[in-house]
Structure formats: structure tokens, C-alpha cells
């Protein structure tokens, strides 16, 4: 499977994606905010810097909001990483969340993690699991993560091969299970080890995620009994109606009903805790965004300076967070963030 970008699909363009949502004539998200007495979403002090190390990935998942894949070559340069480090060195931001694509495929990934460790930052790596088995040079990633006390967050949309492979590609489930067992073997997800392994559940279809606790209990039971796998927590994340998931919704005739579900499930309580309030997302080219989704829609932060080289934490604190109709994805039901439910 090719990325939308490589297959010259018009939906690779962010404006085409937003047009597809606007054509549905839903109550615009900004208006919905006003109707609930919220003029805009105000930022809190930045506690997480989410750094997208690039769109290159060994997988081409059907729901990927990044449109990542082996055919994407955009990756963060060492110079941009150095700029991130220079900001972090003098900042109170404590958590650095590394994402992609497969962040480990960036040739400067290990160096960057070592530098972040030296700065005593809490590091999260969004690891797609199969990368650990993809090539000999990645086989020692579990040991590398352990040595730097990295928190590992990995997607596993279901505890059955059928549903996981439908979303992430043929054979991904069995490789993911093997990778999880390797992470467990070095202590990840094991009580008392202090090594955190969290899983991410994304629905495999045009449905919303259900109660995170109930799903976590079911995942823990099934993964333990069938594969002897342990993990810490399950983050239940709503699929965002952008990029490849948007293409799936359109192709399967589910876009209108999915968006109606999101709008009906709008929860003002979730708005209080959306991740864009305490996170800044850095693109592979150093550009700054309110979140990874705005990054993929090329909606930069509403400040004069919009790149990590001109990072102005104070100005970012006064910005107005950019919203559009895709934001319904983060405010539906119990809400959704990179850390799962928020309300």
C-alpha cells in the first residue's frame, strides 16, 4: 500500500481534507465552542514537547493521520534536533514525546534520545513495535529504551490478528506480539521494573472507542492468557477524520455518520483537557503546531514566530489555539489525546 502522497491522491492535500469535512455542513467546531460558553481554547504552560521525527515508516496503516510509510522521505535533520535541545536545555518542559512515522528510522534518533537523557527529560517513544523486528539494526531497541528509561507507547488496535492486520497490514499482529514479548523480556510492562509500556487502542473501523477501563481489562486478560504479555495501561484514542482515515471513511461511505457521531458525542468537559493546551508539536522541518493533527493539516501555531529556531515560550502562552472540524475527534465522549481518555 502506498501513502496518499505517493499515489497522488488529492486527499494528500490538507485543504482538500478540510473541504471534505466542511462540505458536511456540521455545526462548525468553533461555533460549538462558543455555544458552550468557550470563546476559544486557551493554552496552559507547556509541559510536553511532541517532536515528529519524520514521516518515514516501515508500515502503511490504513488509519494513519500522518500519511506515513516507506515511501515518505521527510525526516527531521540533526540541526533541527539541536534546536529542540537548545530550547529544552533552558526550559521547564519536562516531557519529550517522540513520534513519526517510525521515529527510530531517523538516523539521529539514538543520539537525540541520549542528549535528552543527559537533560534529564522524561522521554516517550511512540514505537510501532514491528520496527524492532524490521531490521537487525533495530533488534536491540528494547535494551536501548531500557538504558535510557524511555516510556514506550505502542499501537495495538486489537488482541486478535484479524482486526489488527486489517488496520495495520498483513502479519503486523504476530510481529507486534513478538516485539511485545521482547519488551517484556527486558522488563517493560512488568510490575516493579519501573519500565513503562503503554498500549494504544484505535478502533478498526468507523466506530468510536468505548470505555477505556473496560477495554484495558479485556486487553490485559486476552494478552496475558493467550500470549503471556504484560503492559501498564491502555490508551483509547479516537481516529481523527483526516488523512488516510478520512480516505477510508469516504471510500466506505461512513464519513457523514462518523462525523455525526463525533458531533453528537461532543463533551465540553473534554475541551478542558485537550492535549493542545499543554503540548507543542514540532514538525520534521521544525515548524510549530498546536498538536500533531494540526501539523498534518498544516495549520501552524497562531503566533508570529512559527519555527523551533525562533521558539518563544511566552508568546506561545498567549496564543489562540487553532481549531477546525477535525477537533470534534478530541472532544467526543470521554475525549481523546495521545494519552487516551481525558474526561
Amino acid at each position: 500500500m502506498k501513502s496518499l502522497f505517493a499515489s497522488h491522491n488529492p486527499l494528500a492535500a490538507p485543504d482538500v481534507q478540510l473541504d471534505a469535512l466542511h462540505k458536511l455542513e456540521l455545526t462548525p467546531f468553533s461555533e460549538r465552542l462558543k455555544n458552550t460558553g468557550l470563546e476559544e481554547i486557551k493554552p496552559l504552560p507547556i509541559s510536553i514537547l511532541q517532536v515528529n521525527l519524520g514521516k518515514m515508516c516501515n508500515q502503511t496503516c490504513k488509519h494513519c493521520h500522518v500519511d506515513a510509510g516507506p515511501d515518505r522521505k521527510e525526516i527531521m535533520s540533526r540541526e533541527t534536533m539541536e534546536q529542540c535541545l537548545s530550547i529544552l536545555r533552558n526550559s521547564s518542559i519536562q516531557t519529550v514525546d517522540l513520534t513519526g512515522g517510525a521515529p527510530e528510522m531517523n538516523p539521529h534518533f539514538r543520539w537525540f534520545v541520549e542528549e535528552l537523557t543527559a537533560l534529564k527529560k522524561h522521554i516517550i517513544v511512540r514505537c510501532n513495535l514491528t520496527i524492532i523486528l524490521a531490521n537487525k539494526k533495530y533488534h536491540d531497541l528494547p535494551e536501548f529504551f531500557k538504558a535510557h528509561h524511555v516510556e514506550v507507547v505502542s499501537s495495538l488496535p486489537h488482541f486478535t490478528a484479524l482486526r489488527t492486520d486489517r488496520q495495520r497490514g498483513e502479519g503486523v499482529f504476530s510481529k507486534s506480539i513478538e516485539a511485545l514479548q521482547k519488551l517484556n523480556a527486558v522488563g517493560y510492562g512488568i510490575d516493579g521494573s519501573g519500565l513503562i509500556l503503554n498500549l494504544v487502542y484505535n478502533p478498526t473501523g468507523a466506530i468510536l472507542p468505548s470505555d477505556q477501563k473496560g477495554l484495558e481489562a479485556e486487553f490485559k486478560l486476552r494478552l496475558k492468557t493467550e500470549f503471556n504479555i504484560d503492559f501498564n495501561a491502555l490508551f483509547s484514542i479516537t481516529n481523527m477524520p483526516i488523512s488516510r482515515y478520512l480516505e477510508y471513511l469516504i471510500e466506505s461511505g461512513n464519513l457523514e455518520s462518523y462525523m455525526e457521531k463525533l458531533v453528537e458525542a461532543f463533551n465540553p468537559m473534554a475541551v478542558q483537557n485537550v492535549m493542545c493546551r499543554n503540548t507543542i508539536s514540532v514538525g520534521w522541518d521544525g515548524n510549530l503546531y498546536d498538536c500533531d493533527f494540526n501539523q498534518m493539516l498544516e495549520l501552524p501555531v497562531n503566533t508570529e514566530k512559527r519555527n523551533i529556531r525562533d521558539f518563544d515560550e511566552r508568546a506561545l502562552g498567549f496564543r489562540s489555539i487553532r481549531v477546525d472540524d477535525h477537533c470534534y475527534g478530541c472532544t467526543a465522549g470521554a475525549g481523546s489525546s495521545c494519552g487516551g481518555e481525558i474526561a
Partner: protein
Amino acid sequence: METYYDPKDLKNFGKIGEFGQELADNFFDYYGNVFKDSALSAREKSLIALAVAHAVQCPYCIDAYTSDTLEKGYTEEQLMEAVHVTTAIRGGASLVHSVQMMKQAKKLMM
């Protein structure tokens, strides 16, 4: 094409109070309470609802509880097994009446 059932009508279920608010409110309160986690989990109740939806052959309920059970993490195989439970009980309900038929036949015939 006009049909008796329109999937979009399900969205108007909440508006039935227009013709009688008090009973509608009572019903929806009751409904909400029934599906809460209690001695049975909300997850278990959802699968029961899917099976019952097939017994009463309510297309709205089938749509709603297919989504709900999938959202709650059930597999397609589990959904189908629940419908087979419906079928077994419905089929059995017919078949068990054959004892009446047999009794009557034996009484009538030499």
C-alpha cells in the same frame, strides 16, 4: 426510495417526548439506568441487547448495538455467536411446541 424504516429516524428517538414528555423521560431514565455497570457490566449488557435486538427484529436496535458491541471490543465472531443464541432460543421455542403436536397426534390417531 421511501421505506418504512429509515436509519436516520433513529436520531429522532430522543424527540418522542414531543407527544408525551413525562413517559418519555421516565423511559429514557430507566433505559440509562438499565445499561449502567452493575451486577452485569455495561459491556455484557450490550451483547445481550444485540441478541434481543435480533429476537425483536428491530433494525434500529441492530444498528445501534452492532456499533456499541464493536466499540466495546467484541469481535465479529462474538457478535455472530450472540445472534445464534437468539436463533437457538427462537427456534427452540417453536420446536418445543412440537410436544403439544405429538401429544395431540397420538391422542387422535390409532
